[in-house]
């Protein structure tokens, strides 16, 4: 009895939460290493190369080798740089990328912080992500990083608008901002997932594709990698970075990409729900159910990550004015129409899907 009373106290709660946070961070970091390898393999496959295949079996350990390479290099800080802001920028990118994972439900009940405004929290944290890039670009005190920072500021603010409106569609369908409720709302087979629900598929499926494209732009992924377009800006905001600060930028970027994959999965692809009804053979609340859900969640996230990797390999880079046109003149009106349609469906189409 003593042990249970200790875990109920604030200190016990703090220890449990720190343990959960560490578990999530380590899990995400390790999976990032392999996803990065997968990204490079897909990219190589499209270009008919072999990709990383030297370190470890199938080159699986390549990311760890790269990690040590970055960590053991010298940190170079340009003479004209604003030292504090220069070093703060990659830290901010890194920390924000991992803060968002606090509200992601991995499996039934497996979430560090099950807050009511979960999706708004994600939106708030991802809108902060732009600061790492702007600060890095400005503090480098150099032309290419500065231009990259300006581009990314405009780009990320623009695409946040359409992402916000698309998220509102999902919130309207579910009637809740809690991510676990959103996933639970899609239970009972893939025909209940928001992307495929028969009554709303005409609106929600295109909206899901719009979210995917906006997520590409929001994470500065090709074809929208203008802040770091190597043919125009060398490496954009990262030009002056080396060693560990660069590594932090890169890990933060990839953590954000995987977060966006997880977000598409949760909002449109049913999160940890299996594509078949599980009511018959899975006992609610059992460990087996949780692991079953976790496996489906990972599978779906990997699917969307492969989509991101393929987009990087096969789509040519957009020009800047085309990017802005797509964001403001196509996605903004389209997502606004989607919000109106979904709201009308909620008012006139009954309460259930």
């Amino acid at each position, binding site marked *: 009895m003593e042990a249970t009373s200790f875990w109920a106290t604030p200190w016990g709660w703090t220890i449990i939460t720190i343990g959960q946070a560490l578990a999530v961070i380590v899990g995400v970091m390790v999976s990032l290493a392999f996803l990065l390898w997968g990204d490079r393999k897909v990219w190589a496959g499209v270009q008919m190369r072999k990709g990383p295949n030297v370190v470890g079996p199938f080159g699986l350990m390549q990311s760890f080798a790269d990690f040590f390479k970055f960590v053991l290099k010298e940190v170079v800080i340009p003479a004209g740089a*604003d030292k504090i802001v220069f070093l703060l920028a990659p830290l901010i990118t890194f920390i924000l990328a991992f803060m968002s994972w606090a509200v992601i439900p991995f499996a039934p009940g497996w979430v560090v912080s099950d807050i009511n405004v979960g999706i708004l929290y994600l939106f*708030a944290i991802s*809108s902060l992500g732009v600061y790492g890039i702007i*600060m890095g670009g400005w503090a480098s005190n150099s032309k290419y990083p500065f231009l990259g920072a300006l581009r990314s*500021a405009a780009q990320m*603010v623009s695409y946040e608008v359409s992402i*916000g409106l698309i998220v509102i569609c999902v919130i309207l369908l579910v009637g809740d901002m809690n991510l676990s409720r959103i996933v639970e709302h899609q239970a009972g087979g893939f025909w209940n997932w928001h992307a495929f629900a028969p009554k709303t598929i005409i609106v929600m499926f295109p909206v899901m594709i719009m979210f995917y494209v906006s997520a590409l732009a929001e994470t500065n992924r090709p074809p929208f990698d203008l802040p770091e377009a190597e043919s125009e800006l060398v490496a954009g905001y990262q030009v002056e970075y080396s060693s560990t600060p660069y590594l932090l930028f890169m890990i933060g970027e990839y953590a954000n990409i995987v977060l966006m994959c997880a977000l598409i999965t949760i909002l449109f692809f049913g999160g940890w729900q299996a594509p078949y009804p599980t009511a018959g053979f899975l006992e609610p609340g059992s460990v087996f159910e949780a692991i079953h859900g976790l496996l489906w969640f990972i599978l779906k996230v990997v699917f969307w990550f492969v989509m991101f990797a393929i987009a990087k390999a096969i789509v040519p880079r957009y020009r800047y004015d085309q990017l802005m*046109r797509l964001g403001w003149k196509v996605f903004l009106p389209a997502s606004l129409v989607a919000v109106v349609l979904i709201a009308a469906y909620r008012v006139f189409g009954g309460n259930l899907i």
Partner: protein
Amino acid sequence: MTLVAIAFYIMALITVASGFLVITAKNPVHSVLFLILAFFSAAGLFVLLGAEFLAMLLVVVYVGAVAVLFLFVVMMLDVDFSKLRQGFANYLPIGGVVALVLMTELIMISFAVAERGAAAGNEPQAFTADATNIETIGRVLYTDYVYLFQAAGFVLLVAMIGAIVLTLKHRTNVKRQDISTQVGRQRKNAVAIVKVKTGEGIKE
């Protein structure tokens, strides 16, 4: 001291300190960064009050959008501070008056809080477990205050149109990309196959 109290003191201290540094920082970009820190820790204070929706909105709107554009502008300006400081003595009286008025207002508010507000036991209606504060705000915003809400929307719309009208210059001498004509272009309109006799070339 409970965890909540510790969190409150840390965040309140950061808010006040960064607010102070906004005015004293030499570099304008540092000022904006401290302003952002102040916004962020104010959002933390909102969370401690149980107003998580307001906190998230503060971060999304002010930190995520307004301050980004602010930073954007300040980074591109080449502000010469010695020039700005020149007229400091001239503006001191009028600045002092503004500060005095603000100070009086703050004191009046704190007295009102002490007599009739939370300090006197009339705490604002706390949110309950069955109604989240999003629902509570929505219920008031779209019923009691719907006209004010709409009016605020119109004010923002007018401001937006004004900003666009001031900056929009329609230039007719530039080449523009029209994606619908590009996509709608047919092969028969674009390509002509001509048989050319040797040594004659194509006559147009």
